[in-house]
């Protein structure tokens, strides 16, 4: 299996790429949204590195999952704290690992329950093989090819580390 860079290295890479992309797309004052739990850690770090003005938002997509009837309730769902006004905002959606794409689908559904953003930019620390939906990230720290039975997980928040099983 290919070598995985450390989360810290990837975070620096993401920051640079994202800066460039925001300039390219003429986005200032974006709204950064991290997906619980790993995505929120990454978003928090990016938020600091980019010195964003707007407070960080977080999203828990448990209530929007499409496999709810198969795997049941996850108690202690964290609250989502999106600002009340997201219409016409540029959103940077952050997750740790992009795999099937279903989490991102759920997150976008939740975001659209709050309003109609101007755009959503997807940032992922790692993008791995195994997509099941037509979803791709705009900014990626590292692409990984993993077998279906392999899992990669980010642990944290201090320190941030990848666990591959």
């Amino acid at each position: 299996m290919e070598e995985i860079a450390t989360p810290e290295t990837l975070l620096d890479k993401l920051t640079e790429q994202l800066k460039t992309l925001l300039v390219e797309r003429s986005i200032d004052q974006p709204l950064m949204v991290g997906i619980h739990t790993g995505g929120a850690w990454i978003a928090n770090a990016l938020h600091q590195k980019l010195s964003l003005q707007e407070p960080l938002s977080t999203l828990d997509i448990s209530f929007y999952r499409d496999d709810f009837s198969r795997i049941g309730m996850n108690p202690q769902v964290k609250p989502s704290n999106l600002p009340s006004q997201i219409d016409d905002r540029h959103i940077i959606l952050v997750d740790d690992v992009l795999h099937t794409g279903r989490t991102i689908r759920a997150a976008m559904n939740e975001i659209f329950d709050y309003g109609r953003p101007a755009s959503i930019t997807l940032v992922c620390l790692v993008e791995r093989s195994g997509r099941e939906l037509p979803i791709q990230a705009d900014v990626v720290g590292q692409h990984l090819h993993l077998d279906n039975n392999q899992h990669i997980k980010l642990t944290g928040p201090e320190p941030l580390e990848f666990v591959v099983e």
Partner: protein
Amino acid sequence: MVNKASRPTDSLIGHDAWNIQLDKNGQLKHFLTVEGLSTELLTNILDTAESFANINEQRVKKVPLLRGKTIANLFFEASTRTRNTFELAAKRLSADVLNVNISTSATSKGETLMDTLQNLQAMQCDMFVVRHNASGAAHYIANRVAPGISVINAGDGSHAHPTQAMLDMFTIRRNKGHDFGRLRVAIVGDVLHSRVARSQIHALNILNTGNVRVIAPKTLIPAGIDDMGVEVFNNMEEGIRDADVVIMLRLQKERMQGALLPSEQEYFQMYGLTEKRLSLAKADAIVMHPGPINRGVEIESSVADGSQSVILEQVTNGISVRMAVMSMVLGRESETSEGEQA
């Protein structure tokens, strides 16, 4: 795991009452009574309700969790709070809700209860929320519905009102913290007729509450109450002393047969919650009441509306707790469960 305190079966409706509500994986399939459930399961309900409480405070108070599910409210007995909060809970989970008006339904044209239920089953309902004035009605129905249908007891006679008990536990936990072991809880009033009190006592015991007290005249205390692990007081002033939580019960005049009480005025004199009596409890004690309240009968207006009252908070919490129970019951893990999202 079956909690010891609540093990001595249900004198009202029989021995298997608490048995049928769990599926073979130990998950809640029906919610008929709190009795016999584990500390872990009750805590799970409270934790899940906490998640939904966040949703109920958001601008968009709705999630797609139960989209495509149909929930029928079958209320054979009058209700405002319970029926409306069940309906709101279901709607905030995106379920479709059918409010069956029993008094104007075919039941009043002579159709039997089972025929009515079979018709609702034929309409592909997923859950029945049942309130009935006969103890055991929800069990009766749960024993007879098709396998895929869940039944939630929204109050049966004098037997049980499990979601009310859980919303009360939730209210206590939100105000007094997670450690029930250090709490003194006093339940005051018509315990004899109160399904709420029965369910509360079971829930408080399962959550290992330090001290549960029942305060009522002898005529309103059911036989066998000592087996439920509570301390009984006939004197209000003694019973309320140093309580952390004071739960007032409604005087259920409609269920009273015979001369159990001299008069409402006299009852208020002896057992009404006045500011003076409340001052005997802890200074930060909370006052609860399942509603509807009879002002001037079991509780003084100034106490019901006072700073220690959490009566309206109970109503709000009822939505979160009912959302939790509905989603746990309808979102049970199936045998083929797998899958992780990323």
